[in-house]
């Protein structure tokens, strides 16, 4: 099966800065994938490359087996995109915004889009600038869903919303894609937004992919080991060190791979997903390309 998004060795440079570097990502079909990383990690750049808004400096990205740069017209009907801050035309009314979607898309489901907004009690006659942030993002979502995209890309869609609106947005999003079986790639710098809805995670920091995989796989393959203070190098077999932290009396090791027996006094502690993500984000140099076994397990 063709992966909705497959990037190999993807790099994008702006001036002298690499926004994205040697990035290989495979987003499996039918998943809600989260792209998590701090601000400036390269999330927007990656999504723009996938949406055909940017050209890669290096490497290749294919969406449904096609290049979003050179064969965009073949993809536009199949890929929905919600840009950062959910841009809409402020002077358009809600009805105008839906008409905008209808006029510009060959594939467009007007009744579904209207129904979606009606169920949220969003008045069609109001101008976009008169809507609340939550309503605005819902209109943007309805516009992107109007063409029944097989792949939906969302760039920090809830970053500016209050917690209630965040939850409502995520609920509507998951409902919609559950009905249609679409693949979603959703970026955020807040893990809590993603944890509830995603089943696949790509951790990106400093322009590089740190790790990627099914959330269950990630949880199963990462461990937090706590034991007496280590003074030298630690030898790991069948595992890699993601992050190490030492206090006066004890050391904590975040590892990827098999659980290690490091000697007396060592124990494994629960590693919640948010902790796992932070261990990568706080030490971006620890990241490597997604490991083959994680890739296989994920697909």
């Amino acid at each position: 099966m063709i992966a909705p998004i497959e990037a190999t060795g993807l790099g994008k440079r702006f001036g002298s800065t690499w926004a994205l570097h040697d990035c290989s990502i495979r987003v499996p079909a039918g998943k809600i994938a989260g792209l998590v990383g701090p601000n400036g990690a390269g999330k927007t750049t990656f999504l723009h490359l996938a949406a055909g808004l940017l050209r890669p400096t290096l490497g290749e990205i294919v969406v449904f087996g096609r290049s979003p740069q050179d064969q965009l017209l073949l993809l536009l009907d199949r890929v929905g995109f919600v840009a950062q801050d959910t841009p809409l035309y402020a002077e358009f009314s809600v009805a105008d915004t839906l008409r905008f979607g209808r006029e510009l898309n060959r594939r467009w489901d007007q009744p579904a889009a209207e129904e979606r907004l009606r169920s949220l009690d969003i008045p069609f006659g109001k101008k976009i600038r008169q809507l609340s942030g939550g309503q605005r993002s819902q209109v943007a979502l309805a516009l992107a869903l109007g063409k029944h995209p097989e792949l939906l890309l969302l760039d920090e869609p809830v970053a500016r919303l209050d917690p209630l609106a965040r939850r409502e947005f995520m609920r509507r999003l998951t409902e919609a894609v559950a009905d249609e079986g679409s693949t979603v790639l959703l970026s955020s710098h807040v893990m809590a937004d993603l944890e509830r809805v995603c089943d696949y995670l790509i951790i990106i920091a400093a322009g590089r992919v740190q790790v990627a995989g099914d959330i269950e796989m990630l949880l199963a393959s990462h461990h937090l080991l706590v034991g007496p203070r280590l003074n030298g190098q630690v030898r790991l077999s069948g595992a890699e060190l993601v992050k190490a932290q030492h206090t006066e009396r004890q050391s904590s090791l975040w590892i990827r791979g098999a659980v290690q027996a490091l000697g007396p006094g060592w124990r494994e502690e629960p590693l919640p997903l948010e902790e796992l993500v932070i261990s990568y984000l706080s030490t971006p140099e620890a990241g490597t390309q997604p490991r083959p076994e994680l890739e296989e397990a994920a697909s």
Partner: protein
Amino acid sequence: MTWVTWRQHRLEALWALVLAALLGGSVGYVALQLSIAVGQCGENAGLGYCLSGDPFGRIAQALLQFHLAQYGLVVLPALAGAFIGAPLVAREIENGTQHLAWTQGVTRMRWLLVKLVLVIIPLIAAAALVGCLEILFLNLQGPHVNRWDVFDQQAPVVPAATLFALALGVAFGAVIGRSVPAMAATLVAFVIVRVGIAELARSHYIAPVIQTTRDLSALGKQADPTAWWLGFPNYYDSTGQLLGNLLGPNTGPPSYVIQYFQPGDRFWAFETIEASILTGLALLILAFAVYWVTRRAS
């Protein structure tokens, strides 16, 4: 795409229509009053002298006096470039809505071309219409009118200048990505190019005619009111020594004068050449803007 373009630019369309109608209306109105005056006083009545003293004639006189059409026809193309051309792409980039527009079902190329055609064509048509009214207005002033004085206000040059200003605006808007700086850049570039062409290039489109005359009583427009007289007359004494452009108490008696001019029958050739230059530049700039939007902008 047609509806989207209309929905986004209908306010600008209204403004353009109002201004073009005001300008065209005033030129047409003065032309009408002049034609009535010509009927009353004959061909050589001269500009405005024979306008009737009734309120209608007075309004026409006032319009003539303030040179409304002369200024309007030079300034409005520049304003179209700054206020309609520059924000065309820049406003989208400013608000981030280009990411919305470019991820719908149409390519950037089509998005931009439809916008350009639907916005530019009506404006050029309006400019051409007002430029033609100005020609009509000049025709009413008899065979001795000097068209070169209002070179920039007549038909082929006015729509070409409008296209040029719009092209500058679109290109600056696309590259700069912010409306206000793009508007400023458009105005500055428009003025520099138009003044540069008018002052440095225009008189050289065709080599000027050299006239040597010993009749010092009728120089320049007195010799031929329909010609474009270039520079000042050059006075020479009988030995062939150049005395200068002005005669003072210390210069000797002039013997003959050499003058350069473009005859009146070359006027339409010059209009066509300048309109072609502006159109050519505009098309190059538009091609660059299309390249930039489709390949470089993000």
